[in-house]
């Protein structure tokens, strides 16, 4: 397949090389400072008391004994975090999620907090806080929460998106619908229809660094927050609003971040730390325990869905319907809506309908996790795609290729497609040696596709030239996985200087204009765009300065390969001026040399991936082992291939964990049973093989180098790729994720046919 490569085919000098990251040495020597690694004079230790109930009315909280304990400097409850007037609804809900207001909505919901001189005193103080709870009926399962007799969690929540408007509140926050054509007419044309139901359990992003911050509020109402976050500017805005502070008076500094994957796009304990600091008039360091991270940060939705696909015998998908019920946790979200927008994106289906429900439950408030909502929907659709291919006797890759979305076609969520990579990834999979490798007994191979949008957003960067000609690029997007190296490459490329001449810094909120978070695979895409424009802006200044130094018109100065060149025969004998030459004279030619850019980095290109997975199943125990894995994904343009591969591999590994083991397990009491890494089983090194990668480069016309976001899509296909491999290995089709050993064993014992309806052949 041919693609316009006028962007990615540019004659790059350093883009695409595998340089060393600037933060590498600090990170291998223990010098890098993360959320828990900062201190201030006189700082206190903050700790949070959390509800042991899934749902309870808080009748009274007595903090007097805790306050009287020597060494305790502040105790706060919701009374210390009053709702500022005019606080937007979603921010008010975030604040209520940070500290319960009259009701605990899930096991782990914060009800009070203390700041004390040391951890031991703080722990003791928590035990002295007396909370009078009246337990209320709870619901944690998404399907149960939708039932008419389910306990209603919020009496103010009426389902939106239904006509007529409901008369009674319910746990269903919204119904959304996307689609094309007429599905009834479409299914009538189908020769074969597959209709299946699926469930997926909630998972956690599993970043190794717990949430941690150091809050310092001064009596004059100004303050600062050192915090592990994907977005210091957004944290600043949200926290200032919550605390009733002026935005400019709260300086937020992002620490090095020990993983986020979406979970650090949302504030959790930070407003509480700020409230403690404000009340104690001392700095407060608050670090969540792992137990708290599981119980009280933002896992994914648990889901339940019905997928129906229809095709004609020649392998044309003619109709598709998905009804997807996504749990949002204790507060309404948009996760069910997002499932609708991603579920059928890989395919051109003339008649399709995706219906999503967002449902509140007595669970922690759901947050984004890498390509949020897409992996679960893809599990359903891609599992059904394999069954449908088998039912019409077609190779699953060929079936997908025949129906793959194409440039100029209409996406199921509405807009027409620009240049996209789904067909290219499928062709690469079809031709990959992995597909032809032999398999042993109890081994099977599966493949699946995935889609994610990617986003751009508000971005700002500064590029400053030092008097020695070295360059400082300052960006406002947190570096979650090596983006400083990629951004350094971009600045070097534009200026025509060596990568080593550029230093990339991440700004705090006092040093740069607003930047949206590092989310939606936007870090390198959007800050890269701002860096390109800031560098081009700087080159204009450099040309002006060179013109002054030569005393010639600026129109006669060009910038080539890192130096100013006087063009035209009139200036033939002028020796080019390097960046260093110009910088050295800058104090006398107009002062500091800098370039800036503020941009809304729209135009993020969508991303597609296709994965291949080989799995071996032990039929006696239901245990599985991934024995080979290949990721093929479109990167647009890989700025730093090492870190692009790293994103592909990391996302695949997270998807493998989701597919096989990871899940939130709730007891009948509505309490989380496995809030720790021992029982919430993430993949370890011995669980995985090398993860092969193939980077495709189908340029995104919305970026000067053709870059697409690469961070998220790789988590989308693994659930279904593994389900499909498992089915091919041992003949059982799994409909419930994770496909953990007990579930596989049960399916094997039920002869693999028990929960599988026959394909309807019209």
């Amino acid at each position, binding site marked *: 397949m041919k693609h316009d490569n006028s962007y990615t085919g540019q004659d790059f000098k350093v883009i695409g090389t*595998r340089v*060393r*990251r600037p*933060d*590498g*040495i600090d*990170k*291998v*020597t*223990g*010098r*890098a*400072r*993360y959320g*828990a*690694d900062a201190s201030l004079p006189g700082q206190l230790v903050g700790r949070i008391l959390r509800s042991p109930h899934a749902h309870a009315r808080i009748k009274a909280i007595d903090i007097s004994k805790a306050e009287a304990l020597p060494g305790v400097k502040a105790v706060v409850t919701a009374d210390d975090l009053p709702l500022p007037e005019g606080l937007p609804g979603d921010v008010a809900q975030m604040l209520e999620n940070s500290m319960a207001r009259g009701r605990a909505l899930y096991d782990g919901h914060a009800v009070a907090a203390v700041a004390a001189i040391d*951890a*031991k005193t703080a722990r003791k103080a928590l035990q002295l806080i007396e909370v009078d709870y009246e337990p209320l009926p709870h619901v944690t399962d998404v399907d149960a929460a939708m039932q008419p007799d389910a306990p209603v969690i919020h009496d103010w929540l009426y389902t939106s998106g239904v006509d007529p408007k409901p008369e009674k509140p319910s746990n269903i926050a919204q119904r959304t619908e996307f689609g094309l054509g007429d599905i009834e007419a479409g299914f009538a044309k189908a020769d074969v229809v597959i209709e299946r139901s699926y469930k997926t359990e909630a998972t956690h*992003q*599993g*970043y*190794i*660094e*717990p949430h941690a911050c150091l809050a310092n509020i001064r009596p004059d109402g100004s303050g600062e927050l050192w915090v592990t976050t994907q977005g210091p500017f957004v944290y600043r805005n949200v926290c200032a609003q919550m605390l009733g502070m002026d935005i400019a008076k709260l300086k937020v500094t992002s620490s*090095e*971040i*020990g*993983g*986020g*994957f979406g979970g650090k796009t949302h504030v959790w304990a930070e407003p509480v730390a700020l409230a403690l600091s404000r009340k104690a008039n001392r700095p407060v360091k608050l*670090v969540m*325990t*792992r137990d708290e991270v599981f119980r009280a940060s933002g896992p994914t939705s648990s889901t339940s869905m019905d997928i129906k696909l229809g095709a004609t015998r020649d392998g044309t998908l003619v109709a598709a319907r998905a009804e997807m019920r996504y749990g949002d946790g204790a507060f309404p979200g948009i996760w069910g809506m997002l499932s609708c927008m991603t579920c059928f994106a890989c395919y051109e289906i003339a008649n399709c309908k995706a219906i999503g429900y967002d449902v509140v439950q007595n669970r922690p408030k759901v947050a984004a996790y890498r390509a949020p909502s897409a992996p679960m929907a893809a599990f359903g659709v891609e599992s059904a795609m394999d069954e449908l291919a088998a039912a019409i006797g077609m190779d699953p890759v060929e079936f997908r290729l025949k129906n793959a979305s194409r440039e100029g076609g209409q996406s199921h969520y509405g807009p027409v497609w620009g240049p996209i990579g789904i067909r290219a990834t499928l062709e690469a999979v079809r031709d990959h040696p992995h597909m032809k490798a032999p398999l042993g007994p109890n081994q099977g191979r599966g493949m699946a596709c995935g889609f994610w949008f990617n986003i751009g957003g508000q971005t700002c960067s500064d590029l400053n030239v030092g008097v020695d000609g070295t360059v400082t690029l300052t960006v406002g997007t947190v570096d*979650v*996985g*090596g983006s400083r190296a990629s951004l350094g490459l971009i600045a070097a490329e534009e200026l025509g200087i060596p990568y080593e001449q550029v230093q990339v810094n991440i700004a705090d909120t006092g040093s740069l204009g607003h930047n949206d978070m590092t989310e939606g695979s936007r870090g390198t895409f959007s800050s890269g765009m701002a860096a390109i424009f800031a560098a081009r802006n700087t080159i204009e200044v450099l040309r002006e300065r060179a013109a002054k130094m030569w005393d010639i018109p600026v129109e006669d100065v060009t910038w080539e390969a890192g130096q100013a060149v006087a063009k035209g025969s009139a200036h033939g004998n002028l020796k080019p001026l390097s960046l260093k030459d110009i910088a050295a004279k800058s104090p006398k030619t107009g002062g500091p040399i800098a370039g800036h850019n503020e941009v809304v980095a729209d135009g993020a290109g969508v991303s597609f991936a296709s994965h291949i997975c080989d799995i071996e199943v032990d039929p006696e125990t239901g245990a599985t082992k991934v024995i080979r894995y290949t990721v093929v994904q479109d990167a647009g343009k890989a700025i730093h291939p*090492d*870190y692009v*591969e*790293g994103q592909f*591999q*990391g996302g*695949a*590994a*997270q998807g493998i964990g989701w597919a096989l083991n990871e899940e939130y397990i709730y007891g009948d009491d509505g309490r989380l049973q496995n809030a*720790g*890494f*021992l029982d919430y089983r*993430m*993949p*370890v*090194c*011995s*669980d*995985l093989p*090398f*993860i092969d990668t193939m980077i495709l480069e189908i340029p995104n016309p919305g970026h000067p180098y053709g870059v697409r976001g690469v961070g998220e899509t790789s988590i989308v296909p693994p659930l279904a790729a593994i389900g499909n491999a498992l089915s091919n290995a041992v003949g059982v089709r799994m409909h419930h994720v994770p496909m953990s050993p007990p579930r596989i064993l049960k399916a094997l014992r039920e002869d693999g046919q028990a929960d599988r309806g026959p394909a309807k052949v019209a």
Partner: protein
Amino acid sequence: MSGVLVTTTINGDAVQFACPEEETLLDALRDRVGLLGVKEGCGTGDCGACSITLDGRLVCSCLVLGAEAEGREITTVEGLSEGGQLHPLQESFISHAALQCGICTPGFLVAAKSLLDRNPDPSETEIRYALAGNLCRCTGYDKIVRAVQNAAKQIRERSAQSA
């Protein structure tokens, strides 16, 4: 505060610190000695971010009391490089892009060094099992295993040259 005075050797230096009896060695190293390269990911011995060696043995410092360090020898990530030189494992983690966020890196480096000290030529499987006590959520372990393989090769080549 009742407490204990602990005399120990950390990264080759004689060090004394005082801590409460119930304080973990992890907290003592971070809060009393200032070795912030030792990370806490779970506090329950499941993630390996706080890995150190105690008398040459790889342990999670969150599962050891500070008081137990009395008279023992401790190595942390801060003690891996010698003089101005990075350890080959540190060098290799950078050149192989074996870290993304980097929070697990100190623990992986200490665990990998512990492996190579015992077994200079480990197979891929041996590396994977030796590092199975360390969680990484970013990399899928691929580049970590390759970095350890590469460092092992370099160390073997160096010792062959000096022999």
